[in-house]
């Protein structure tokens, strides 16, 4: 074996520019990274995005408000309920529509289920990147249970089009509650299993502890929100800060990290899963009776049973389905807490039946700016770990 030069010896190094992606097993989606490497140390990093840019915002300008909902939910394709909520909430604020309490609770239940779903996908794929391949199977086993619940309530596993302006499109079916309670009882046990596997795993610890640290102030400067910010010690959560849906009535904790390294990010998200289960349980216990969608026929489709008896309902239905409702000119920005951070919807209405501008402020897009800070000066392996913990979803980044 040749003699290995001791560290710090006069090694001739050069900086190479390497292209990672857009097709790469470790990039979560089609992200292209142009990294300047000196040996194994990352000196500079430039993310190149846009490989799944779908022009959703432009397409939305061409559709009536009702039809925008399926478009908008396909941006960040793992947390689809959140995009629906951002858009529907923005429209509701724009037209001044109040949604009934049952709809608020139902929306909260589905949002928190989707948060668990998103974190499960994140945990499975990130652990896969780090080599803990069994996590993928276990996380997706739970994910399939959540998707069964979604399918039971809405008919679709993903991209359910469940939230409508004014509430939700359908009430939950019989048997949903029982199945959801089963899930609620089971999930904390499963999360405990995940923690048993990873929390004190030596390889996982050595890869995630102390890597990818960005100080809290820098994260705030960069506009980073969500679990990344909370892992760095800043207890900022839009669910607690702003009152929307049924969150003010829920009692839940917001997990906050201390150091801000990758391990903290992992712990924060896993703890969030448990808190989400608690929120779902509370919402299910406190689910009020009543209508699941607002009554205002100008914006909400009348129930089909009325169409054969009431002429007015027929006219409303016809108008809503063909042209859609017109919204007075105005603009609104409405932000919620998605699994990745602040998901905001800016809506500009110009008085016609189609929105003039729909812009989604996506959390992953802004969070990606922190990636350079996380990785410069660390090894490539740490960069991959940071990328996993950053949890970018390229659909949201590229829109």
């Amino acid at each position: 074996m040749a003699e290995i030069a001791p560290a710090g010896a006069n090694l001739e190094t050069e900086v190479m520019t390497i292209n990672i992606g857009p097709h790469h097993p470790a990039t979560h989606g089609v992200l292209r990274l142009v990294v300047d490497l000196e040996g194994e140390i990352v000196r500079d990093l430039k993310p190149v995005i846009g490989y799944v840019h779908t022009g959703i915002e432009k397409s939305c300008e061409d559709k009536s408000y009702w039809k925008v909902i399926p478009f908008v939910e396909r941006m960040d394709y793992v947390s689809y309920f959140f995009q629906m909520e951002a858009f529907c909430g923005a429209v509701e604020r724009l037209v001044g529509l109040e949604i009934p309490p049952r709809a608020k609770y139902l929306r909260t239940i589905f949002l928190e289920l989707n948060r668990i779903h998103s974190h499960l996908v994140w945990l499975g794929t990130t652990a896969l990147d780090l080599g803990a391949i069994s996590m993928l199977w276990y996380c997706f086993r739970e994910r399939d249970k959540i998707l069964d619940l979604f399918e039971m309530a809405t008919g679709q596993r993903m991209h359910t089009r469940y939230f409508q302006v004014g509430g939700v499109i359908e009430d939950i079916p019989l048997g949903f509650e029982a199945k959801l309670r089963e899930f609620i009882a089971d999930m904390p046990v499963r999360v405990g299993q995940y923690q048993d596997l990873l929390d004190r795993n030596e390889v996982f610890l050595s890869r995630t502890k102390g890597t990818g640290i960005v100080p809290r102030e820098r994260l705030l400067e960069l506009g980073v929100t969500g679990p990344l910010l909370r892992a760095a010690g800043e207890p900022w959560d839009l669910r607690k800060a702003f009152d929307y849906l049924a969150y003010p009535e829920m009692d839940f904790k917001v997990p906050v990290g201390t150091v801000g390294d990758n391990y903290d990010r992992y712990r924060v998200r896993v703890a969030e899963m448990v808190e989400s289960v608690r929120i779902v349980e509370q919402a299910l216990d406190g689910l009020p009776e009543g209508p699941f969608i607002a009554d205002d026929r100008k914006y909400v489709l009348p129930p089909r049973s009325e169409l054969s008896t009431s002429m007015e309902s027929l006219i409303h239905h016809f108008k809503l389905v063909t042209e859609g409702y017109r919204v007075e000119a105005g603009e609104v920005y409405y932000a919620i807490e998605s699994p990745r951070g602040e998901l905001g919807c800016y809506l500009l209405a110009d008085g016609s039946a189609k929105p003039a501008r729909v812009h989604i402020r996506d959390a992953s897009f802004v969070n990606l700016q922190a990636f350079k800070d996380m990785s410069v000066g660390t090894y490539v392996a740490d960069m991959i770990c940071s990328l996993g913990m950053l949890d970018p979803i390229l659909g949201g980044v590229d829109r």
Partner: protein
Amino acid sequence: MRDRQLRARDMLRGDLEGEELERYVEEKVVMTNFEKLLGWARANSCFPLTFGLACCAIEAPISIVTARYDLARFGAEALRASPRQADMIILSGRVSIKMAPVVRRLYDQMLEPKWAISMGACSSSGGMFSNYAVVQGADKFMPIDLHVPGCPPRPEAVLYGFTKLQRKIMGHPDQGWRQRYSAGGTEEWARGGPRSEPSPEAAAAYEEARGLVRA
């Protein structure tokens, strides 16, 4: 077909002699069995490429390799990251204009025999995104063997499509149709609209492919 029937009857009657008989045996028995074996082996040990673009990627390739919708029982467990080692690409997700040359390059880097499944509405036809940024169907720039509709298609739907693809592989289609249809020659048909005719080679290839999957 009739010709084959007549020759089979002749052979059974003992009327085919000499060269004819040899040729018949070669065609029918040896080649066919070997090709069948080859097709069977290829179909049941497909190496898909780990390639996910957008929403469909969560259903495939991630969800179909997980325990509930197990792709491994069809033999396609070994997902390969490098296109040089893969023989099937599942286009799961919308193909944007920036990504299309990348996908084409990946497809070209794959070695023959290779197959492409276009999963979901977006890669089959642009899906709901009829706008400037999405290629209206991956057919526009690369040959696709199988389209799976849905938005996103259920993993079971993708698996059903995969079994159809397996049948197609086992039928050992003439791979040359892809050279003829590398989306280069059929542009006039795609652009001419549904009333115009495909080129004769493309028409023959489509007919053959349709027959194979009609099982």
